[in-house]
């Protein structure tokens, strides 16, 4: 079995496109590699229209089967190839795009799914949405990015309450609100202030940020997100945190930002924080690509993973943290419904709201997303802080997090689903060839 893989972004462009809309497909593809290696051989292509069918023809000549896995949203999936094709995509809405616009028929996903005949997606909610449009019999498998094994192997001990310790973060700038006065970024100040300050910071840090240690204590909450992605709803996450811990210096929220430009990524958050009034809790913004070791150290330092999204196709960072036994403060909608439970998380209630498909540049309201309750988010933060100080309770939450995510996206689980897909493919290809 040969898996031909392709994604819009490759290794070389990742540093430049960090934070761009499709960048996470790169990480999804990387996460699948161990499982694909278990089930067959991989061949990565950069130009699918030229390369895929050539590989397919050669393999057929050897009597070998091929599956082209396009790690991309369906409207970017290459069509018209002889090789069996399956888009591997993330989706967080109840409806799939069933209208086409800008003259590209692929915007109507039904057009794409009808031609591929099969698809892989990262969560149950997305599979349900596809079946609602394509019929119950449509061949779609839930194959989350199998990140569990790699992160569970870090085997860092989860602790709710931390005695003071130093976190070394190589490669990243740590912008710690307890270090400086936010009033320079207040609304009445010129909006360029934040951008200018950050440009100055960048120039000063050129040639590498000094490897400064971040001294942390108490309960540490972490979220990895791209602030430009409005679905992540960092505003509620940050404001809720300040409301919950205004007088609590031992609560820290670390936001690991995945965004290329520091002005775009950090400035809006600093301006927002400056308007929240005085607070004693700490908010640390991490900007820059962390080394694997530094990323592991950040997980190690974390008590809870946080998510306040309006919708998730999988949320790999949350799954990674939970793989390492970090319980969550998160809603239980869309993909999170697959692994967030009352046993492993402080669930933030959410309600549906009218929304737009994220790539629909017409701006039409064809979708629903999920708005978290702000007041309840504040309460969940406070409850989790209390739970962190109860080692036995925290241990149970932590164990439940690992277990739930193992069942969701361990390599064994995902390989099993892929095998089902391949079995079906073999059967249908066999039937096709017999009739041919």
């Amino acid at each position, binding site marked *: 079995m040969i898996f031909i893989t392709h994604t819009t972004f490759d290794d070389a462009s990742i540093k430049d496109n960090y934070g761009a809309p499709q960048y996470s497909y790169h990480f999804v593809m990387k996460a699948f590699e161990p499982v694909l290696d278990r089930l067959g051989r991989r061949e990565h292509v950069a130009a699918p229209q030229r390369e895929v069918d050539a590989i397919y023809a050669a393999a057929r000549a050897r009597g070998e089967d091929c599956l082209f896995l396009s790690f991309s949203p369906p409207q970017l999936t290459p069509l018209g190839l002889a090789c069996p094709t399956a888009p591997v995509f993330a989706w967080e809405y109840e409806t799939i795009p069933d209208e086409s616009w800008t003259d590209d028929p692929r915007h109507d996903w039904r057009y794409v799914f009808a031609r591929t005949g099969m698809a892989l997606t990262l969560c149950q909610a997305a599979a349900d949405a596809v079946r609602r449009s394509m019929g119950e019999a449509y061949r779609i498998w839930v194959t989350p990015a199998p990140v569990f094994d790699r992160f569970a192997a870090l085997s860092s001990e989860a602790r709710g309450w931390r005695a003071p310790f130093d976190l070394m973060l190589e490669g990243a700038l740590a912008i710690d609100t307890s270090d400086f006065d936010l009033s320079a970024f207040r*609304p009445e100040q010129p909006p360029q202030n934040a951008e200018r300050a950050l440009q100055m910071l960048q120039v000063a840090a050129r040639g590498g940020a000094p490897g400064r240690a971040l001294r942390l204590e108490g309960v540490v909450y972490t979220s990895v997100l791209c602030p430009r992605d409005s679905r992540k709803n960092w505003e509620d996450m940050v404001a809720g945190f300040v*409301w919950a811990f205004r007088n609590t210096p031992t609560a820290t929220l670390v936001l690991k930002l995945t965004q290329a430009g520091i002005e775009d990524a950090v400035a809006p958050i600093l301006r*927002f924080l400056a308007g929240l009034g005085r607070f004693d809790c700490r908010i640390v913004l991490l900007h820059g690509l962390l080394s694997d070791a530094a990323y592991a150290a950040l997980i190690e330092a974390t008590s809870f993973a946080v998510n306040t999204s309006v919708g998730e196709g999988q949320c790999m960072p949350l799954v990674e943290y939970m793989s390492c036994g970090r319980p969550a403060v998160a809603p239980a909608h869309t993909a999170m419904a697959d692994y967030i439970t009352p046993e492993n998380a402080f669930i933030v209630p959410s309600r549906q*709201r*009218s929304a737009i498909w994220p790539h629909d540049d*017409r701006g039409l309201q064809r979708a629903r997303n999920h708005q978290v309750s*702000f*007041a309840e988010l504040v309460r969940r933060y406070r409850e989790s802080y209390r739970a962190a100080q109860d080692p036995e309770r925290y241990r149970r939450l932590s164990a439940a997090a690992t277990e739930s995510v193992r069942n969701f996206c361990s390599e064994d689980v995902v390989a099993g689903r892929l095998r089902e897909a391949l079995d079906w493919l073999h059967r249908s290809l066999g039937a096709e060839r017999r009739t041919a």
Partner: protein
Amino acid sequence: MIRRLLTPKRSAPAPEYAGNCDLVEDGVVHGWAWLPSAPEAPVEVEQWVDGVLKARSLADLPRDDLAAAGIGDGAHGWRMLLGLDPRKTDPQKVEVRFSGGGPVPNGAFEMTFGRQPETEPEPASALARGHCDGLREGVAHGWAWRPLAPEEHVVVEQWVDGVLAGETVADGVRPDLADSGVGHGAYGWALPLQLDRAKAGPQRIEFRIRGAGPVADGAFDLTYAETDAERSDAAEAAEPSGVVGRCDGLKGSALYGWAWEPSHPDTYVEVELWIEGERAAHARADQFRPDLRSNRVGTGRYGWRLPIDLRLTQNGPLAVEVRAGGVPLPGGVLELKNDFSLEDPANAELRPFVEAVLYGRSKAPAAPQPETPRLTCLAYCPEPTETGPYWMREYDDYPAAMRAFAPALARLGEVVVVHDLEDAAAICAERREQGGACVLFAFGPPRRAPLETPCRMIPVFAWGYPVIPTGSWDGDPRSDWRNVLAFAGRAVTFSQLARDAVLAAMGEHFAVAAIPPPVSAETAPPKPPKRRRTLRLHGVVFDSRDYAYDPEKPIMPPRIWTGGDSFADGVEIELDGVLVTTFMDIEDHRKKGADLVSAFIVANRDKADATLLIKLTELNGEWMAGVYKWLTAQPAFACRVVGVRGPLEGEALDAIIAASHWYATAPNAEGLCLPMQSFLAAGRPAIAPRHSALADLIDDESALIVFSDEEDWRWPADPEDGSFSWGQHPDDVGPTTRHRVSWSSQVSAFEEAYRLATAAPDEYARLSSVAARRARETCSLEAAAAAVQELLGRDVRPEPGPAPSPLMRELAAE
């Protein structure tokens, strides 16, 4: 009210200037300044607080005492609001200086925000004065007032053996007081003694002025038996035969009253009319009087009427007596005069009427001066700001709120709408001269409340958040609302949330009332609209059925319908089925118009007989394209959306209300909801969240409640997000909350609204009648008038109160 004369320090005036800082009172510092070498030159003084220039004032206020002391022409007074920084808890250094000169003598002192200057507490009696004149027939009489606030009425309390046994507002007319220079004189009070009849020994009676202290001669000891004896003495003096009753007076051409014998409730008393010592007529006291019955006077059938020929008075006053059992009834000894002479000055007011009837309009003489009422309510509403910085725009309709309040204020006194403060000053001076008093009701955000008013000012404002603005900016102390409220001493808000927000900042004893603007309500039970009906809409009308929607074309295409000739004339629309009406301002981001429209369309996508009518209140002409954009964002829908912009008052508004089934709104904060009040009063239930000002008006028996809960909110920072209504600068204090309204709950509510209006008429009728009844109860003229009256008589005692936000309370408690 505390008055403090600052102790003179070293007197060191700048060489050329002269002046003094006289006193600090209620957060205002007073004084005078001039330049003796150039008495005509304008002199300016500056107020510095902790080294920051906070205020400037020209010293040009006329002061008689200065003129008397030979300080130029006397017009050299100044006053400034103290600009203390409310965020500082330590004493702050205040310094008043001549602009371009040295310090003003006695102008340097230290004060702490929120604390009155430390001074010898003055005896409370200095603040309010009163007297107990004595007892008559078991009722104590007297007078009480507050010389520093002559337009207000104090409350007099009766304490019996340390127990508060009764209270009354001292507002009885007492010409004798006015004559002896006690304000306008309307400060009389009367309180029936409330002794405990179970106590045999003497009881301690004390009359006190609320918040001030005892009234003079108002403390004495009495036994119940004594008061009883006094009462019966009075009764016996009037009626040894045991007859009890009263002559109520002359109405028309007869005397009226009542009389009975409590020991023989079933017999009827004979009353006699004696004129000039001769028995002229008699009558039996056997007529039914409901007031007697309800006051438990026997069967209540003791009324009497004695006709009297008033022509007899033409020859001079008549001595008249009404007797029962041989002695005059209380109130029954009268001198009847010919009160109906056109020449009598007391009848001057009626003379034009009589003459107009008798001689026609042309002969009617000029209207005489009307009698001056006791209280004049000046209603003042500065022109709303429609331009200028985004945060100055006002969305709350204060002029309409003022119009709604005027009839309620009219029950307290004459209402005069003033457009500027000079008018107000002129009216005030005139009323004072005539012995009356004025109160100015300033409709608008406290940020724009006038402080230079000639009489007491009461801010009347809308607010939809649990925290009031307390920031400082631009050197205008009014940006911190606490300064304005402390200065005014009293405030009226439209909602309980706003009231609680004020109490949280000003202390739980601050005199603030939550009074929804009164709306006129029909008393007839509401009738639901007919299924098919025609509605004439005035103004510019947009109808979704006039357009074919093409999502690729965000620009509004021409209409496909040609039913009317001109937009501006308005159109008649044929309505079929359910009509939901909403009032909104597309630019007011509190109102969440896009969500409301999308929820309506999603809920009624396949219902051709469901219509949403949007009444637009804004000024800009872009609204039609805005509504069009919301509609194109939706997949094809069968329901209908109609927008109308134009003046909608009176009959036009009544027609819309009559045609509507529901009123919908979904703001994230609301301070004033006049349209919804009108719909509710007419039996049109609401589809709305239950928060801020809305919470006072609806519950689940009178509305379909849309779910909402609190969220973080700060005064918007981004001009693009401008959603201002209260004339407040974004550079303000920390966080507050507003409400996150659930869109999905709104969809469900619209679905339910359609079901109730079409398939469950009984349930709809129940909501409708409860809505009408509640609105009549909460927004009645009587309730509003009583609440304002009560507010005028209240005291001010600052002390912090609890936060009205449940989320904030919860966080503080943990």
